[in-house]
């Protein structure tokens, strides 16, 4: 090979490697920009300059209407409750502009999202682990099992809005559960199910066969083997990889839009008359709240506070979950290396 050609090849290689590098870091930069923008503008809402440094009302109140008005040369921006108190003190007519949702906080949304996540993960983990145990421990590679696997893969690709429509058709209308926690749990649970099954199966597969064979050779039944020799080693892995599913459930909006979420609700979930009403009530949810505040009200200086605050909280929440999953995964990998 001639020297010139070799040089040319090397130059081509260097240039294209830099292009690949640029593409990679461009993605990271774009994502970083989003994190910083939402993080910085959101932290103005979440934190305060004075002790206790955390904007307590934002975390403890429900969303309220914001009132903006001028009075004696001073500009006031008051939440609904404060405005009423102010009017009692100052019995004068003021012309106030009202901006919906822009005052108060997101406490009911956090509670609602928490309830939705807990319920749907319990359902998805119970069904998902049982399903994975069958697929990995009992089944042979028959035609019906292949069909099940294809179904799981395809279920994973169904758009979340279709799950929403399905949940609306089955739970809300057909079973008459109306817009309720229960409908949200099942809709979200079914949506996350394929991911849980896949993760659980992977953990089960990682348990060496010697453990099963040893147990069976000692006369244990299949179930005893699974319970004593397989599950204890697989469950930590299953749980850690399922954490990522929690993040997805917490951030999804489309499936709960018609099944579980209300735009505004004054009562907290535990303020129900009978305990049976608990599961049949709709809740406010953080992702749906972000949708409402970013699409139903205009973008201006007054609304920005709530919009960025809510987006930042959800982002932090999901990242905390993702970080926990990554850290735990590394630790399990180190501890359980066969």
């Amino acid at each position, binding site marked *: 090979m001639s020297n010139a050609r070799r040089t040319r090849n090397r130059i081509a290689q260097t240039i294209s490697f830099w292009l690949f590098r640029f593409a990679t870091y461009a993605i990271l930069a774009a994502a970083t920009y989003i994190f910083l923008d939402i993080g910085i503008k959101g932290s103005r809402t979440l934190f305060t300059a004075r002790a206790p440094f955390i904007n307590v009302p934002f975390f403890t109140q429900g969303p309220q209407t914001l009132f903006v008005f001028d009075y004696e040369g001073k500009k006031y921006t008051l939440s609904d409750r404060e405005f009423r108190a102010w009017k009692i003190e100052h019995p004068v007519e003021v012309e106030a502009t009202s901006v919906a949702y822009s005052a108060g906080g997101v406490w009911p949304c956090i509670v609602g999202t928490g309830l939705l996540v807990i319920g749907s993960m319990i359902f998805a983990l119970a069904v998902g682990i049982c399903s994975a145990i*069958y697929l990995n421990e009992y089944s042979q590679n028959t035609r019906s099992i292949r069909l099940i696997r294809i179904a799981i893969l395809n279920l994973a*690709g169904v758009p979340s809005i279709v799950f929403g429509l399905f949940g609306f058709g089955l739970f809300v209308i057909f079973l008459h559960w109306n817009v309720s926690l229960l409908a949200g749990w099942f809709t979200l649970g079914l949506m996350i199910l394929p991911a849980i099954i896949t993760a659980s199966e992977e953990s089960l597969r990682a348990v060496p066969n010697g453990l099963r064979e040893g147990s069976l050779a000692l006369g244990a039944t299949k179930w005893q083997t699974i319970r004593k020799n397989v599950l204890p080693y697989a469950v930590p892995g299953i749980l850690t990889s399922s954490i990522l599913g929690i993040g997805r459930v917490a951030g999804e909006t489309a499936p709960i839009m018609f099944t579980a979420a209300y735009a505004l609700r004054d009562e907290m979930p535990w303020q129900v008359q009978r305990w049976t009403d608990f599961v049949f009530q709709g809740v406010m949810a953080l992702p749906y709240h972000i949708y409402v505040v970013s699409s139903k009200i205009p973008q201006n200086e007054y609304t920005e506070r709530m919009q960025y605050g809510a987006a930042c909280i959800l982002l932090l929440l999901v990242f905390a979950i993702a970080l926990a999953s990554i850290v735990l995964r590394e630790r399990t990998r180190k501890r359980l290396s066969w």
Partner: protein
Amino acid sequence: MAEVVAASPLAAPRPVRRWRADDFIKAFFGSNALIAIVVLALITIFLFREGFGFFGQNLRNIRLYRRAGLEYVDIMRDTANAHAALSRGLNLTRKSAQTTESAETLARFDQFATAFSDSAEDLNGLVSDAGEKAVALRDALALQAGDVDRGGENEGRAGAPPVDEATTISALRANTATFAAITSTMAEKIRGLLKTPPTFENAKTKRTFDSWSKRVENYLAILPGTTKKLQSWDPDSPVPAYRAVTSFLFGRDWITASFWQDWYGIIPLLVGSIMVSIVALAIAVPFGVASAIYVSEIAFPAEKQLIKPYVEFIAAIPSVVLGFFGIAVVGETIRHLSQSRFFHWVGFFPISERLNVFTAGSLLALMAVPTIFTLAEDALRNVPRGFKEASYALGANRLQTIGRVLVPASLSGIVSAVLLGLGRVIGETMVVLLCAGNRIAIPDFTQGLGAFFQPVHTMTGIIAQEMGEVVRGSIHYRALFMVGLVLFAITLAINYGAQKLVQRYRMSIG
């Protein structure tokens, strides 16, 4: 002894399988494993259950459209609309001629334009008169039939006043003669106007005007044909049943809650979804595949340790947060950029809408990148070591090995990664709902690439937006379920294709 004899038929050897505890446990787990199939079946069943009534209702809707004479009026309305379009063409010419022509020419031109748009006054009056009659008849007929959508259900059939359908329709059809008379006077007026066309100094304006005159002549030529169409129109000619399906699958209008006629055509939504996906993939595929190559072949181990978890973080961003970011930041940024001098040479800039196909597509690209990156990186890593070593042994450098060996060997894996990315993009709801602009119209493709900077509505977006507001059981409600069904079918097909590709790929290398 008697007992034994009595028991003997039961004790006879029969292959009774005894169920032990373990079998029950196995059956329990097995039934759980079936849930994926059950859920897929349930999704299909419930989408069909809620959506399938759409076709019947849509057929009734279209039949009523013909029976009440709305179709008849629409034929006339098309003529009036074509005239209005020609008037708009004149206005555009006026705008572009503003700087190049003298004030005198412009004044004469304005006179001409006004005379032209006035020539359709009678026609417009006729259309709106006939339209009112047709709508009144339609509402009366709907009330008689107890149609849910037109609010006739509560009053019931008994309360509905009897409709003299034949008289009303024949009164409506008497308009054919009026239409013929009006259009012929209008044609004469326009011909008279064209005999003394305004003159222009500027050659370009003149050319524009000449092409406009040609359009007018075409318009005048088809007028008699329209009259014939009106004459041959028959309210009793049956609407074939397949029209209910074709008007949904190939319909170019999605018009709901209008006082005139509702149309449920999926094409504008489908086009919107596809255009957004094209933009998203056009950005995400190069970046996703390039970064997969970079991480699996070029990056240092420390870089890998950093980039892979970071991409996982990107995958974890909730779509609604991305959508909010699009509204708050990206849309405005794109509009600002389009107004800057740097992009002055782009024909369709500056753009008017900050929320458009490109805004949504660029954000969806960020959602598709993690999917494409992860799967493509997997595919590249699974290429057997020997392939790479053989390539190096033959004297290829790293770039040649990547381009000629690794990428071709993992191509089907990469393609299936792209397909799964497409599935994710086309089914994504919140970003397009917030950032695509939500205008239900097929973009104007005459602008070329500019069409990608116009607002659209998508299949996922329309479900999310309208589902909360529709009346349960109405035709609109069922139409939304049908859109969901189409979406479901598309994503299933994409997924299935991706899986088939992966299987083949495993066989060829494994």
